[in-house]
């Protein structure tokens, strides 16, 4: 199963006006889109606004999405175009340019240097994200071989349940169950780190 198939059900429902389905896609891709935009737009506040704008544009353009490319590919292009447009506007508007400069961004330099923080993150946020990544990786290592293999084949190799069942020589129901249990085991270790009581902010 390729990436476009994974999103198909949600995309079709979103195209029929189901706001819940669109929101699920937003939460799925929001971090990637923000990171993409942060590589182009230096100002952290602006990254947030541009990312929001990208999703709004995607929402408006949904009726025109025909599934010829993967949904994320299409969303990616919209985000890039939105960021480019913003950069042009910044250069054009002397007030925006000045405030962008004041926030520490040089508008001629669109890519962060290696030793700089990406996403305009604070050191605390960067530390938190490293801690989260370390926790996930440690949790993966602590899984049983079957659970680890199942979730790795799904999330990293992008195999379908059917393909994983083939590789692991087990029923599809077992694949489904193993991936679910792997996620739950990792999520349980993650939740103390994620800064809220379970579900509180959602």
């Amino acid at each position, binding site marked *: 199963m390729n990436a476009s198939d994974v999103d198909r059900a949600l995309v079709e429902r979103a195209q029929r006006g189901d706001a819940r389905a669109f929101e699920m896609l937003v939460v799925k891709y929001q971090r990637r889109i923000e990171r993409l935009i942060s590589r182009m737009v230096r100002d952290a506040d602006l990254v947030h606004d541009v990312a929001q704008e990208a999703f*709004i544009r995607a929402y408006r353009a949904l009726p025109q999405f025909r599934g010829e490319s993967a949904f994320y590919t299409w969303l990616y292009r919209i985000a890039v175009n939105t960021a480019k447009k913003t950069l042009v506007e910044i250069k054009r508007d002397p007030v925006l340019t000045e405030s962008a400069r004041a926030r520490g961004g040089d508008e001629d330099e669109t890519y962060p240097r290696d030793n700089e923080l990406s996403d305009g993150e604070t050191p605390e946020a960067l530390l938190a994200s490293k801690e989260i990544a370390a926790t996930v990786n440690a949790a993966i290592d602590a899984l049983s071989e079957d659970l680890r293999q199942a979730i790795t084949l*799904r999330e990293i190799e992008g195999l379908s*349940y059917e393909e994983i069942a083939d590789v692991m020589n087990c029923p599809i129901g077992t694949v489904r169950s193993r991936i679910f249990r792997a996620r739950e085991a*990792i999520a349980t270790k993650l939740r103390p780190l994620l800064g809220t009581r379970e579900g509180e902010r959602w």
Partner: protein
Amino acid sequence: MSGDPLNPRDDRQDEDWAALSSMADGEAGHDAQERCLSLWAERAEARGRWRDYQLIGDVLRSGALAREHGHDAAFLASLRDRLAREPVLLRPAAPAVRRGRWATPLAAAAGVAAVAGVVMLLRPVAPPDVALTARLQTRSVVASAPEATQQQLLQPVNGKLIRDARLERYFAAHRQSGTGAALQMPGGVVRSVDTIVLEDR
């Protein structure tokens, strides 16, 4: 995964989260999809869990996207407010249509355009106390019931009126008045727009 036989609620909950897990992989059947979407609207825990599952995948692939909940939840909350101001464009599954002209107050900021084959869902700005569930379900009920009769589809829900031939007469009756009741939007502009009207089946 075995739940507690003395607590069937745990089993049900496990099934719910298992459905969400398979939905994340694009492997949920139709019933599971419906369940997931209901959970999404009704339970904050479901939204948090979906986000956890997606985050785990992101971290596995890149390690660079890990963030605590607050940032992502705030992003969605902010976007949701903006989406609420967008008009909803629906593409009926099997349109049986006739063209009509109608005039209605439209918010200039919404920038609404009617496209052939698309039905406009008019929605006034939602008051802050409207339940998220009700608001999301309004749109999903219309969207997911293409076979339903017009009677079922086109009921006023939570004060939000949905276009149909009967509403055309309603709009005509209110065109003269400056304050078109629930459909008057702040800064609204009256325009004539070509659009499609669903027929009674």
